[in-house]
């Protein structure tokens, strides 16, 4: 169905020389049969999405770069052709469905591709009936796209990619923006497409744990230009991008590796390992007190008379479902432009009485989209703007950034940094005045496992007796890595306030993956287990 022969692809600098020392894809040979469900994974920047783009013609005609070798699809050699020549054979679904919609109504969006390809009306009608039935979206055809849930949007995007009868479907991180339920339905549909309709599916994803049990084979893009294809259990030699379940297997030397929680649990129960309990950082002085803090939006009570205390030397995670009040709590503590009732006080006094500038100095916040704060053309400009704005000696921000992210060329454009580096940049800008309270709203959005680990390390570096770090997150594994204390919110109310080992325990609804596997009191993360 799909073959790559000696395929080499490298990105080029504007002057035509290769941008990297070795090609992104180097002499890749690959044969994929019809009807296979394949997970494509690898560390960020390894070339996962480049591989997908080579298969639908977006690389090189869209991305630039040099290609050699052959891309053969359904017996046709399409190497170096424009994307629209691939379009009738290969369907493509992007990370964010709402960013790739052309139309406003579901029906128009689905048939768009077939119209572009000049498919006749009778065939479009037939394909439309078929594909909407498979994806269970027949009732949505007349709806507006923006009225759909994320999962429904993603299924519409899949239908749109297959409307012209394409037999290969490529998906670039299709479930990363979806909740568990939405992602489950999308995966079930993909499984059905491969098994019952002979569609070949290649799925690139970094949230591997939710996908891994559904796929037939794993295609690993190693990052050195090579790729390898094989059964899931054989593929994880490299732990850089592995989910906790695989990491556990690797650490304990399981042969073969387990991919479902159920099997892993059996395996663990056969031979449980010893582990060290978690020692949370001892709380230092009390830095922040919330007294009867409430926030009301129209008729919704987003935060309901919350009383909390936060201490230095600690990282506190605020957890809860979407809409439970996590983000609202962060903004209410920061207190800018939000109507709140109740009191937020620090040693310096009530924050409502402080001048805006000194409040900004005391309480730093990194919003959900950190890049919203970046608007200058180079790191150097951002550094000096930050130093002069916070009236710190030149170099303060740059030093902090270097401490967090390592040495990076300061002439780089902030937008060319990775998501993790951007976060580090915003952290250093916001902390230039060494605030006593640091708030982070969903800091792990869009980060892969490696970047999350790096962020955890950075946050631990920032722990000081005179600083309290508070993060709102729904990412259990990340919280397990960094937090000392976990506060759980529900409908704007605090429902529990515990140390991390208890909060993410196996019996808790917030159990970490390792806690679920081990079913053991006090074991929540991998570094507790001795090999």
């Amino acid at each position, binding site marked *: 169905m799909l073959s790559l022969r000696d395929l080499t692809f490298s990105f080029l600098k504007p002057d035509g020389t290769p941008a990297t020392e070795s090609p992104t894809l180097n002499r890749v040979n690959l044969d994929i049969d019809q009807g296979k469900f394949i997970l494509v994974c690898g560390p960020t920047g390894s070339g996962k999405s480049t591989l997908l783009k080579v298969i639908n013609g977006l690389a090189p005609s869209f991305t*630039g770069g040099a290609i050699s070798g052959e891309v053969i699809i359904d017996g046709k050699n399409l190497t170096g052709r424009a994307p629209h020549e691939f379009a009738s054979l290969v369907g493509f679904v992007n990370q964010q469905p709402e960013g790739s919609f052309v139309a406003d109504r579901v029906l128009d969006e689905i048939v768009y591709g077939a119209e572009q390809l000049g498919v006749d009306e009778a065939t479009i009608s037939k394909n439309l009936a078929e594909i909407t039935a498979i994806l269970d979206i027949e009732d949505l055809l007349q709806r507006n796209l923006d009225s759909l849930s994320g999962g429904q949007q993603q299924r519409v995007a899949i239908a749109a990619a297959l409307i012209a009868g394409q037999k290969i479907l490529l998906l670039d991180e299709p479930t990363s923006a979806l909740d568990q339920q939405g992602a489950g339905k999308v995966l079930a549909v993909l499984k059905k497409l491969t098994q019952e309709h002979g569609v070949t599916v290649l799925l690139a994803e970094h949230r591997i744990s939710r996908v891994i049990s559904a796929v037939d084979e794993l295609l690993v893009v190693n990052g050195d230009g090579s790729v390898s294809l094989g059964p899931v259990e054989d593929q994880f030699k490299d732990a850089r991008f592995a989910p906790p379940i695989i990491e556990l297997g690797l650490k304990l030397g399981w042969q073969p590796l387990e991919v479902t929680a159920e099997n892993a649990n059996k395996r663990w129960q056969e031979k449980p390992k010893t582990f060290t309990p978690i020692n949370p950082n001892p709380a230092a002085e009390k830095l922040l007190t919330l007294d009867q803090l409430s926030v009301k939006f129209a008729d919704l009570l987003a935060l309901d008379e919350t009383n909390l205390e936060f201490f230095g030397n600690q990282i506190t995670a605020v957890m809860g479902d979407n809409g439970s009040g996590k983000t609202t709590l962060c903004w209410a503590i920061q207190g800018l432009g939000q109507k709140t009732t109740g009191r937020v006080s620090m040693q310096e006094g009530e924050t409502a009485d402080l001048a805006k500038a000194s409040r900004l100095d005391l309480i730093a916040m990194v919003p959900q989209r950190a890049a919203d704060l970046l*608007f200058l*053309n180079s790191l150097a400009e951002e550094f000096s703007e930050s130093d002069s704005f916070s009236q710190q000696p030149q170099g303060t921000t740059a030093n902090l950034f270097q401490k967090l992210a390592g040495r990076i060329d300061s002439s780089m454009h902030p*937008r060319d940094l990775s998501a993790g580096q951007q976060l580090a940049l915003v952290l250093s800008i916001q902390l230039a005045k060494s605030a006593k309270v640091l708030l982070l709203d969903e800091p792990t959005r869009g980060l892969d496992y490696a970047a999350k680990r790096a962020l955890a390390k950075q946050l631990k570096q920032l722990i000081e007796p005179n600083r309290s770090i508070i993060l709102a997150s729904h990412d259990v594994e990340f919280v397990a890595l960094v937090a000392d204390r976990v506060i759980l919110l529900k409908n704007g109310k605090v429902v529990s306030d515990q140390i991390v080992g208890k909060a993410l325990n196996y019996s808790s609804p917030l159990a970490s993956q390792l806690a679920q596997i081990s079913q053991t009191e006090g074991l929540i993360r991998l570094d507790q287990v001795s090999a």
Partner: protein
Amino acid sequence: MKLLISRLSIAVAGLASVLMFTWPLFITSKIASEAALAQAVFIVLMPLVLILVLVEFSSGDIGAKQLALLGVLIALNAVIRMLGAGTAGIETAFFLVILGAFVFGSGFGFILGASSIFVSALLTGGIGPWLPFQMMGVGLVGLGAGLIPKFTRSWQQKTSLVVYAVISSFVYGSLMTMWNWPFLAGTGTQLSYVAGDPIISNLTRFFQYELITGGFFWDFGRALTTSVLILLTSQSLLATLNRAASKAGVRRG
């Protein structure tokens, strides 16, 4: 050769549209129904000429990336225009058109200017007989901005952009006032056009009309906001747009 023909038809269309703005200066017939006829014909003719120019600029060679980029810039400009609307003399729709056209070229600039006026009218409900004229006007502002020479020194670049912003603000303002002049003043007042009069005396009355109706104040506000916005944003916006241009592989020829 084909390019030459294409440019020639755009030039002819441009001249025709200027005529449709400034007809009170040129009309010879003193019969009211004939002036009304010209007015009516131009209301229908302007959209047609506008469509011809848009087709001339767009047919054939717009790729997916240019198109998507055009879409986001049109949306952004329409939204920015709505932010500025309502405050007297503030016109925020021009600077992005000028900077966008400067980076991406005249054709892109014309489409960006005309379409963002169209979209903001769709969003706020300002569609009327004046809309094709506004679209043509802002389209021409974009077209001209695509012809501003590129300088290597930053201050020269900024100066040329600001000078263009001031000139185009006043020219656009005068054209639009010229359009509403026969509508709002009609004939038979001391500030009305007089058919067949020498151009210079009609122009004098036109300037009196501009001054008295506050048109100059609006034009001045437009020139001022556009210049200030260009001074404030050009450095970072041009960098951003240039990065977009290399991502999208579009740049003025």
